Structures are given as structure tokens and as C-alpha cells.
């Protein structure tokens, strides 16, 4: 099995297309960093314009943790497209090149073949998120330093102490990995049905956009299905940055406001991943290779 995964990883990382995602993330984060480094104070003033009259904030608001949060809010909406570029190409790309039929005449069961490809897809997804973490968290910590994290929610503000933040980011990236793996498994499933990667990529993004709209629409008739849509749970990483307060309205260091919500979201995402992959195996085992 390890040999198969090695081969799949080798193929993924020898294709120029693979590096588009890494280059895109580097470029986007670079632009945000450049902009904030150049004119970060204006951004903070704009962010704080409605609350400066009621509270006074001391210290360095625009620090590495703050920039990382901004980057994640912006990029985690678009990273699924970059994931789909590779995941949705895993089978359809092979069918398009004509290599699928050669691969499947080798003495490897279709389930093992698919599992190796899926593992390699997950490895790619994780590497992309590690790269995102390196640039968005670690590089920003170096470039902008560290301080408390000040977050504006719709009805309240959250202030996380400097020493109570890093672990939350590690968990947030872990959760994001789960969310992106769900996207990857959906793209992987769609890649079984086409002989070029454009269709599966577009289909994956269409489903994500469609479900995201359903997840955000405040129309009562859709509320019943929202808990079952994986897109509803993909933003669960933000829950790590909501903190409990005591009776005196003071933040409890090391706490999370609603850990059960995170667990529920993680379970829904895992069920989707298992479901998408199981469906892929069942379909692929019976698929006639006509390419």
C-alpha cells in the first residue's frame, strides 16, 4: 500500500498543476501581508471605527495572530477551489491521459488503487494547509509580532490573551484540514464520472457554492436541512476563537464557548468524508473503463 501511495504522491508532485495552489496561496498571503505592513493602521482604524467611542484598546492590535485570522477568513473560502484542482483530477485526469486503463491492468485491486489515490489526495490537502499555516501563522508572527487577539463578532467583541491563542490556531488548522478533506473527497467522487478534470472541478465548486448559499440563507424552509449540509460545518474552525466568560464577564483562559458544536461539526464532516469515499469505492469497483 505504501508503494502505491508513494507512486501517487510522486505523480501529484511531478505535475506543474499541483504547484498552482501553493503559488496562489503564497501570492494571496503575500499581498495581504504587503498591504497590512504598508497601511495596516488605516485598516485597524476602519475596523474599530464603530467601537472606539465605547472602549479603549491599548497594545498592538495588528499583530501576527490578528493578520492570521484575517487571512483565514479570506482564504478558507477559496482554498476549496485549489483543493478541487487536484482532487477532482485524480481519476478523471488519468482517464483523460489514457493511463487509467494501464494502471487497472496491473495486479492491484481497484479498492487499493482508489484508497492509495485518496490517501495521496489527503496528503496533498494537508500539505497545502501546512503551507497555509507556515505563511499565515508563523510568518505573520515573525513579520508582525504577537499580542492579544481582538475579534469583532456581530454582537460582542472577543479578546484573547496572547498566551491563549497559539493552541487555538493549531486546532483551527486541524479542523480546517477536516473541512478541506471533505471538499477533497467530494471532488474525488466527482472525478469518477468524467474523462477530463474540468467537469468535476466545476461540479465540486458548484455544490460548495450552492450548499453555502443554502447554509447562509435565513429562510425557515431551509433551516431543517442546514445541519446536514457539510458547508454549514466547514466554518467550525471559528468556534475555537469564541471564549467562555465568568459571572463578572471576564474571559476564562483556555476555554471554548461551545466545544460540543465543534465536535458535532467534526462528526458531520467525518461522516461526509466516509460517505463520499465509500460511494467512490462502490461506483469505481463496478465502473467499466472505456477511456
Amino acid at each position, binding site marked *: 500500500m505504501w508503494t502505491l501511495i508513494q507512486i501517487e504522491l510522486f*505523480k501529484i508532485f511531478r505535475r506543474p498543476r499541483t504547484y498552482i495552489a501553493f503559488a496562489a496561496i503564497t501570492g494571496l498571503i503575500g499581498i495581504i501581508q504587503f498591504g497590512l505592513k504598508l497601511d495596516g493602521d488605516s485598516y485597524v482604524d476602519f475596523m474599530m471605527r464603530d467601537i472606539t467611542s465605547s472602549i479603549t484598546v491599548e497594545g498592538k492590535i495588528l499583530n501576527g495572530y490578528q493578520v492570521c485570522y484575517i487571512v483565514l477568513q479570506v482564504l478558507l473560502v477559496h482554498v476549496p477551489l485549489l483543493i478541487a484542482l487536484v482532487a477532482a483530477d485524480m481519476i478523471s485526469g488519468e482517464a483523460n491521459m489514457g493511463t487509467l486503463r494501464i494502471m487497472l*491492468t496491473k495486479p492491484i485491486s481497484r479498492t487499493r488503487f482508489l484508497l492509495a489515490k485518496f490517501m495521496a489526495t489527503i496528503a496533498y490537502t494537508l500539505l497545502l494547509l501546512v503551507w497555509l499555516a507556515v505563511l499565515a501563522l508563523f510568518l505573520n508572527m515573525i513579520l508582525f509580532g504577537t499580542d492579544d487577539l481582538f475579534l469583532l463578532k456581530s454582537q460582542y467583541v472577543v479578546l484573547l490573551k496572547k498566551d491563549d491563542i497559539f493552541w487555538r490556531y493549531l486546532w483551527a488548522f486541524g479542523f480546517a484540514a477536516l473541512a478541506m478533506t471533505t471538499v477533497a473527497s467530494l471532488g474525488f467522487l466527482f472525478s469518477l464520472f468524467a474523462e477530463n478534470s474540468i467537469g468535476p472541478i466545476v461540479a465540486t465548486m458548484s455544490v460548495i457554492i450552492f450548499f453555502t448559499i443554502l447554509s447562509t440563507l435565513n429562510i425557515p424552509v431551509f433551516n431543517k436541512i442546514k445541519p446536514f449540509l457539510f458547508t454549514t460545518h466547514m466554518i467550525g474552525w471559528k468556534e475555537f476563537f469564541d471564549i467562555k466568560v465568568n459571572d463578572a464577564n471576564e474571559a476564562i483562559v483556555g476555554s471554548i464557548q461551545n466545544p460540543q458544536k465543534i465536535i458535532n461539526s467534526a462528526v458531520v464532516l467525518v461522516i461526509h468524508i466516509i460517505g463520499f469515499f465509500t460511494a467512490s469505492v462502490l461506483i469505481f469497483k463496478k465502473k*467499466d473503463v472505456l477511456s
Partner: protein
Amino acid sequence: MVLYNNMQPIVTVTGLTKQFKNLTAVQDLSFSVNEGDVYGFLGQNGAGKSTTIRMLLTLIAPTHGCIEIFGKELTANRNEILSQIGAVIEKPDVYKYLSAYENLKLFARLSGVKVTEQLLMDQLEKVGLASRAKDTVKTFSQGMKQRLGIAIALVHDPKLIVLDEPTNGLDPQGIADIRNLILHLSRDLKKTVIVSSHLLSEIEQVATRVLIIDRGKKIIEGNAAELFDPSQTIVELQTFDNGYAMEQLQLSVWGQHLQPQRDTAILIKLDRQQISQLHRDLVDMDIQVLSLQPRHSLEDYFLQVTSGNQHVDTYSN
């Protein structure tokens, strides 16, 4: 290790059928391939050759029928059987962004071969690609890709080699190379080869046994030496009452010469010198003959028994 008796067929196909929604691509096809055969699989485009070959390689699941290879049922022993088969299916598609060496190494590992640089370079040397080993495949010509495809098919020293339309898109030199390779595999390396083509001339030069299919059905299977014997011919007989004629012929010595009937004609394979005797016997059997027309060559016969004559008719009109 799969053991099989020399006299037993390596491949036995029984009642193979493949239905795609409303299309029956292969219908009740049965044939067998013996060890050491170069088995020519002949038919027009769309006759069902590739579908059959893909079923032999587990790329397509049969709707009905049974395939045994090396004496074992294919589906139940898939990996064991495939480990001893090398295949080139139509175009030799490989990873264009990898070099010839990397492609060969990758597929050799998938075939379970203990890969060494020496083994891979030897294999590339055999197909004349050693000097281009490090070049990416996207710079290769069609012929070079085909040779790389063959190197991939042979790298694990398989017992059975399946070549589906191996000369498609090749220039005359490439076609000759493939022909020589098939003969080398069969004569020198004692491999069993199944080779499909829609070109009779290709099969004629290499095959020891031949199967002709048309519209998914078997037309004829036999030894190439007999089928391609220039002294043999096919006589097309049309009578006033074909049913009666068939009945009489089957009861006579001509019964063993009868070929599967096509449309309104009865086909009889015989030595050219026997035609006059056949004519006399038809009169003796009181069969009212409308026409008795010998075909001049196997190609003529091939076009007759397959759908090829339709194309000729189209151009004639």
C-alpha cells in the same frame, strides 16, 4: 506460480456477452487461446474486439459469460492472473510529464517487479529508447510512445501478452517493428500473444490462430495456416430454398465445410479444386442453385463475413 498443462488453453472464454444499455457489444462469444499461440483477433472497427480484450483485462465487467486464464476464473483470481499479463491497449498512453525511465519504473513497481536501474535500462535498450531514457515523454513520437508502452507491458516478464490494435497510428517502419516484435516474442521467448487488429494483412503475417468477429459475434475461429491457405477459398451459394440446401449439405460430406450462414448466402470453405465436385453434388442432391460464386481471397472473405462490404458498397454507390 500458475501451472497449466501444455495442451490446455491458456485463455478460455465461454458465452461472453457485454450489453451497454441498448447496445450489445459482444454476444455469446466463445474461444480459446493455447500456449504459444499468436492469436489474431480480427474484425472491423466496432466489431467488439476492444470490448472483449478489455473484459480479458478486467477493465470491463461482462454481462454474462465466463473467462478463465491460466486455468483459473478471472474475477476470483484477478491479481494473480494480471501479474502474468502484459498489455498495450490501443494508444500507448503514459504520463507525458514523466521521463521514459520514470514511467517504466512506476509501472514496473505496480507490476510487483523488484526494480533495479539495470533492469529498467535493459528494457529500454531492447525497445531502442535507452538514449532517450531521461527525456520526458511529451517529446516522443507516436512510435516511440508505442515502444515505451511495449517496454511497460514486458517489464515484468509476463506469460501472456495482449496487444489491442498495436499498430494504430504508426508509420510503415513502426508497423514492421511491431510485427517483428510479435514474432520475436512468440518464436524466441515462447510467449503467448493475443493481438487484435482490423487489418487482415497484419494478422495474416503473424498469427498462428485467428478469430474473426463481427457485430460482437464470432464468425470463424481456426488455424491461420488453414484460413490463410491460398489454395482454399470460400464459395458463396445461393439457392431457391436455402433451408433445404443446408439440410442436404449438412447430411453430406460438405457438412464439415459449412461456415456460419450470412444473410441469404450459404458459405462453404473448400479447396479450389473441389468446386466442380461441389457443383456436381448440388445437382445430385436436387438443390436448385441460383448462384455459386467463389471468393478470391481471405480478404474478400473477411470483407464478406464482416460488415466491411458495406463500406465498399457505400463507395461504389
